[in-house]
């Protein structure tokens, strides 16, 4: 390392060391120097991801009480429990950047941080549990697998653990739909209706088209993001088409067809006006999801306080 006397130069030197770490695709760790914008971008992205896991417990969790077999009830409860765990890992990764879980929860409840728009759509039948596993978790996996190699160490390590569990989530969803497709006509219709309802919102999960995605370029340069929105969306469509065929459902897009020239599927454009509305808070369930989370948080306050008081008292009695 070259000795550099003055303050501003030291800042430059730190920036250079940071840039070099990114350039050789090495990881940034919590105690490393990092640009403020890198830190704030990470906090925003990891928090949004954590909130998505926690809010995402609701649409499926709503069906635990109504799961139609004991086996499905156990699988669904274990899955939704996993999501609580994923949220917990991600909040912890965010805490390495100096923001507490309580602060992040406040930001979520105040509407100042977002979560995935998909969870602002309702779940209306048990087939939705399968569709969420297959398509929503499938899309999430497309987004998340590259994040295992993200430049921020704690985030990448959380993602490795999460991806490992997510692949089983996708499996259980697909397996549920396959089983239902072997059932009655009513069940097959239920599956198709569910896929019809979720297909477009799932495509929106990858975010706006690259041309309209303001933060993407910098995030990619920093190695926080590894692929563009459109790349991931294309990848998801190409991966899903044969799965839909094997399942025996149609995807509700008249423009969906194989393009031999591109070696990829062409597909229609999601309704970006609807996407924008849901992001603005006008989705079918935005208010409901946040209210549910707020109620749990506020109704739990006296419990958290009691445990803190008890711990303090025990420590005072010579516990710690």
């Amino acid at each position, binding site marked *: 390392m070259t000795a550099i006397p003055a303050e501003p130069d030291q800042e430059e030197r730190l920036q250079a060391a940071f840039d070099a770490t990114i350039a050789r695709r090495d990881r940034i760790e919590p105690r490393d120097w990092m640009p403020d914008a890198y830190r704030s971008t990470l906090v925003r992205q990891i928090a949004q991801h954590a909130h998505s896991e926690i809010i995402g417990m609701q649409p499926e969790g709503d069906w635990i009480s109504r799961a139609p077999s004991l086996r499905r009830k156990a699988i669904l409860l274990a899955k939704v429990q996993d999501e609580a765990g994923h949220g917990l890992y991600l909040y912890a990764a965010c805490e390495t950047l100096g923001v507490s879980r309580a602060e992040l929860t406040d930001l979520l409840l105040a509407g100042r941080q977002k979560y995935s728009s998909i969870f602002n759509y309702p779940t209306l039948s048990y087939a939705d549990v399968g569709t969420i596993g297959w398509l929503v978790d499938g899309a999430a996996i497309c987004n998340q697998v590259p994040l295992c190699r993200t430049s921020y160490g704690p985030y990448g390590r959380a993602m490795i653990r999460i991806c490992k569990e997510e692949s089983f989530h996708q499996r259980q969803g697909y397996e549920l739909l396959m089983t239902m497709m072997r059932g009655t006509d009513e069940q097959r219709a239920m599956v198709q209706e569910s896929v019809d309802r979720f297909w477009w919102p799932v495509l929106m999960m990858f975010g706006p088209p690259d041309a309209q995605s303001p933060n993407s370029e910098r995030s990619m340069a920093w190695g926080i993001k590894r692929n563009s929105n459109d790349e991931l969306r294309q990848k998801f469509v190409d991966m899903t088409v044969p799965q839909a065929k094997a399942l025996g459902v149609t995807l509700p897009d008249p423009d969906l067809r194989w393009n031999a020239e591109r070696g990829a599927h062409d597909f229609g454009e999601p309704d970006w006006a609807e996407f924008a509305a849901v992001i603005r808070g006008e989705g079918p369930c935005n208010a409901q999801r946040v209210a549910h989370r707020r109620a749990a948080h506020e109704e739990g306050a006296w419990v958290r306080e009691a445990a803190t008081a008890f711990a303090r008292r025990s420590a005072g009695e010579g*516990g710690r």
Partner: protein
Amino acid sequence: MSADRREWPLYEVFVRGKRGLNHVHVGSLHAPDDAMALRHARDVYTRRNEGVSIWVVRADAIAASSPDEKDPLFAPSGDKVYRHPTFYDIPDDVPHM
């Protein structure tokens, strides 16, 4: 103490996967005290029976070296409790998915 006084303090969790191995850092959690932290660790990190032995330690009790000791400008905030080590387990079989 935690950055936020309404919040239970942060704990780091170490699990011995099986006899003969070291305890390895697996992640973090919040708990009001040591006893509850152990219970939480069992619930959160050994749901699939991964561990036979669990250690928990409050994150603010961990002393840490800076990553590059020659670095004169290592930020003072580096000593803040929230800059704790986390998720140090990288499984051998990183899933290709």
